């Protein structure tokens, strides 16, 4: 009965959806941002954040405040909320949550492996890992020397295991290989998540598929942009593109051949979604960066996800919006602490 999913959605997930909508209402408003921007130092920022939903999250901080403390505390708060959602979720929403954590897990694994390469102690790097993506086997990652080792020994029982199909190789893990591994993992992760949402059907598919398509295309653009001037071959590059986006297949083939930003822009011209985005990117002196433009678009999509009811997209959107908010606060805090006020306004407001 696919068409009456609305009828029994609330039986399993109604509580959580209500909760997440309530949480969304506590996102910082434009007024809050205006106030934050006016802060003179981080203590002011703390005082102002106390009046928002963040509350006393910095109250038991004795030493001087730094940006990284704020960042960690905010992440902890987000993590607490997410854990609550996750602990109260039922299938298939809990699988959905697992998929959401996978991207953070991938980042963490790569971070740890990079750290191991540079012979940094695990404890130092663990602090930098995103709490949403932490898992038990994480600390053992640096035992592995090759990708297949990594898979066989460490990650075979984690949710990341299925994404390893394409990247089993006996190459030793150097910096480039790790980066390739990350992108391959991401590619298969995005595709798997996309298939999951598609198979789920209903409103969830209607909401989540465009978001994930965008995510895939964004990765494709970023990979292309980052590969200019590296030794990555064009075939290799194409193999890293996630294939679940709107660009697939022609756009990706074109992107694989691109050699500079202008050419990339020409590829994007074929797509009505991406044309205005890439057009909005300014040149070096002033204007927005490509990343910011993408973030803005992402925020818009995530906010729109709240317009529909009875779907899982709200959870994804909420976490992403919170992340964006945290990025904004960190940005503002950085600007304040470094006395770099000219750029303080280039945060991305959440509509």
């Amino acid at each position, binding site marked *: 009965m696919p068409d009456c999913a609305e009828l029994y959605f609330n039986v399993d997930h109604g509580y959580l959806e209500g909760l997440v909508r309530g949480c969304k209402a506590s996102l910082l408003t434009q007024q809050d941002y205006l*106030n934050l921007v*006016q*802060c*003179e130092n981080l*203590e*002011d920022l703390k*005082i*102002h954040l106390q*009046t928002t939903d963040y509350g*006393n999250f910095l*109250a*038991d901080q004795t030493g001087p405040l730094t940006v990284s403390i704020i960042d960690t505390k905010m992440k902890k708060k987000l993590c607490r909320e997410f854990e609550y959602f996750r602990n109260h979720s039922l299938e298939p929403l809990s699988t959905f949550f697992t998929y959401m954590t996978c991207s953070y897990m991938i980042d963490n694994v790569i971070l740890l492996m990079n750290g191991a390469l540079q012979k940094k102690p*695990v404890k130092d790097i663990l602090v930098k890992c995103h709490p949403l993506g932490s898992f*038990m*086997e*994480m*600390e*053992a990652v*640096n*035992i592995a020397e090759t990708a297949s080792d990594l898979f*066989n*020994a*460490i990650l*075979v*029982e984690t949710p990341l295991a299925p994404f390893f199909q394409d990247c089993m190789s006996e190459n030793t893990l150097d910096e480039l290989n790790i980066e390739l591994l990350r992108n391959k993992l991401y590619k298969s992760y995005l595709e798997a998540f996309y298939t999951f949402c598609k198979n789920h059907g209903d409103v969830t598919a209607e909401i989540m598929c465009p978001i994930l398509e965008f995510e895939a295309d964004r990765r494709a653009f970023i990979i292309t942009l980052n590969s200019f001037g590296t030794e990555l071959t064009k075939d290799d590059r194409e193999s890293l593109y996630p294939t679940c986006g709107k660009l697939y297949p022609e756009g990706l083939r074109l992107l694989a051949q691109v050699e500079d930003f202008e050419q990339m822009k020409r590829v994007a011209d074929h797509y009505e979604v991406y044309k205005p985005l890439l057009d909005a990117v300014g040149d070096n002196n002033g204007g927005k960066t490509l990343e910011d433009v993408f973030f803005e678009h992402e925020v818009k999509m995530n906010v729109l996800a709240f317009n529909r009811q009875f779907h899982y997209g709200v959870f994804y959107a909420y976490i992403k919006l919170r992340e964006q908010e945290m990025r904004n606060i960190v940005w503002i805090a950085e600007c304040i602490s470094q006395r770099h006020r000219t750029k303080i306004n280039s945060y991305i407001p959440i509509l």
Partner: protein
Amino acid sequence: MGSLFRSESMCLAQLFLQAGTAYECLSALGERGLVQFRDLNQSVSSFQRKFVGEMKRCEELERILAYLVQEINKADIPLPEGETSPPAPPLKQVLEMQEQLQKLEVELREVTKNKEKLRKNLLELIEYTHMLRVTKTFVKRNVEFEPAYEEFSSLETESLIDYSCMQRLGAKLGFVSGLINQGKVEAFEKMLWRVCKGYTIVTYAELDEPLEDPETGEVIKWYVFLISFWGEQIGYKVKKICDCYHCHIYPYPNTAEERKEIQEGLNTRIQDLYTVLHKTEDYLRQVLCNAAETVYSRVIQVKKMKAIYHMLNMCSFDVTNKCLIAEVWCPEADLQELRRALEDGSRESGATIPSFMNTIPTKETPPTLIRTNKFTEGFQNIVDAYGVGSYREVNPALFTIITFPFLFAVMFGDFGHGFVMFLFALLLVLNENHPRLKQSQEILRMFFDGRYILLLMGLFSVYTGLIYNDCFSKSVNIFGSGWNVSAMYSSSHAAKEPKKLILWNNSVVRHNRVLQLDPSVPGVFQGPYPFGIDPIWNLATNRLTFLNSFKMKMSVILGIIHMTFGVTLGICNHLHFRKKFNIYLVSIPELLFMLCIFGYLIFMIIYKWLVYSAETSRVAPSILIEFINMFLFPASETVGLYPGQAPVQRLLLAITALSVPVLVLGKPLFLLWLHNGRGCFGVSRSGYTLVRKDSEEEVSLLGSQDIEEGSNHMEDRCREVTNEEFNFGEILMTQVIHSIEYCLGCISNTASYLRLWALSLAHAQLSDVLWAMLMRVGLRVDTTYGVLLLLPVMAFFAILTIFILLVMEGLSAFLHAIRLHWVEFQNKFYTGAGTKFVPFSFNLLSSKFNNDD
């Protein structure tokens, strides 16, 4: 008039607080709770205000105190709560206090850290001993019963017996042993197997007693494991994996002697640690006990200090930056007290220049303050729930004190039920100082807050119950019924009596199921029952018909009186606000409209009651028909209630019809006329906000408003008020809507009062049904079983009476009474558009520890 009739008159005062004394002055004000501060820095965000540094200090102190309280609670030391609340600390003491607290915190943190370290050490040692104990059995088992590891067993046993021999062989056999969390065992073993490809042997056993985790302090089950492995590479990996799973690894003794040695060493160290730990704990407890004595007053003091700085943040500095200017609303009656408070504050701080105040004229609407006591508070709350009264308007709470319980009782009229309710309320009132009641929560709290309302409701229900002569649905015959049944028998009358009377004889009585008493037979009706309804009606089958007619008429009469009273209170409002034209153009037409239609209806009801007796009752005209005919002018003349009825009715109707256009057009036209320059009545036209001015002053003000209060920031708002555009269309529209609402409202509200009848009927019927279904059944059973049966029946009856009739019915009657007050009564005069006066008072700060905000 009492202060309950109107809210207190307020004035806006400016306080000039010398910079040095501001804190003390505010402290004195906060203790007294006299004034409401106005925020003069609304445009300044919270962290840019003057006293943000002090606020931060307060927050720091609060943080330390919260930490102290948390530690004290953790140590299970009782926190004494002082009865009196200490005053805000003088500024000189604040620094001292802060120092003390900070020192205490540092000390406490140090000691706790040491304690934690010691405890962790101890726990680790305990774990180690456990591990040694358990692994000893592993070795034995490995030797004797491990067939699964056969290929290694020879090596294993050998190695255990003689480690040096293995070293001679050149192969490094390593051991890692430790403890692991119960939940992680399986994953741990799997990963070991995968990573080391089977070149390890893992043995583990569950520890029989759960131990505390040194890091988190949780008490959990542990597994002791022993891993034997070959080669350094694998050993490296094994250690990594152990780290990954947060195992607690302890060195593994290679020989039996070594093991014994370690064990003994451990035992003595554990003993030592225990003593040290005890000492530390004792010391910590002592420190905490000392802290606990003062922590309550400190918490209160810091709260007060924070509140003071919060208020100071609302003040603005004057030009010279030497004194703070605060604007406050203060009741005029309290001005003296306010002056005294400022003097006290100045004296306390020893300042040379005293702080002073002066009142400033304002055109803004002041907040509403109605002083209540514990008795009137509940009634005021009922009114405030609808809307806080506008400044100085008539406060319906005063009348609600009587009308609310009365209207409730009309619906809840039962002597017994009312008495039970009265007793319950009396219990609450008599025990109102009981601490358990004061701190009660939720529903009981609700009852407790409304205890005086309940008390009056119960009392009035007793009264109406006596009127209805209902006690648990039964009537009480106190004075003896006024009806005499035997007088109906023909035998009791002399033969000379007129024959047209229908009298009873034996055959009539025997053959009729239902007989009617005829009050016109002499001797049957001996005059009315002295108080309330005659108990004989309880037996009559036409009881309902009789009561319905009575209750319906009664509710209409009560309703119309209530509403008329509301309209008269409107006149009071207009008089007070000097808007006489409103009386002539609004209130009087309203009154005429109401009285000419519904007042006349009451007149007819009472007239019919008085004039028609039992003999003439058959020719009495129906009031309903008469009332309808009043509007329809029937062609054929009816009998009528009294001679000359038709012209009187025509006159009344004409007055009614005339009052409507006056009501609709009078006020707008008058205002238009005033606006066109002929304001000779000396009335203000801009509403309630100007009431405290004399009319001449106002006129001049209207002309020269721009000269006034040039630098004052509230100028803009003032101008908004005075500059109000005269918009005839809007006024007309408002008045038309009001008139239509009123005229239709008169009819629908009158009908609405019929709920009095409906609810009292429902209540009576419900209690009747309960009696018939339960008690009557219980009483009918014959005597042998009856006694046994009656007990549960009584209990059941009591429970149902309380829950259905008292609680449920009471609640519904309560709601309907509220509605009658809010809608039918208050919309005749009450605006309810004010804001409540919230004084800056330390009493409003909560004195609880666990309150975060």
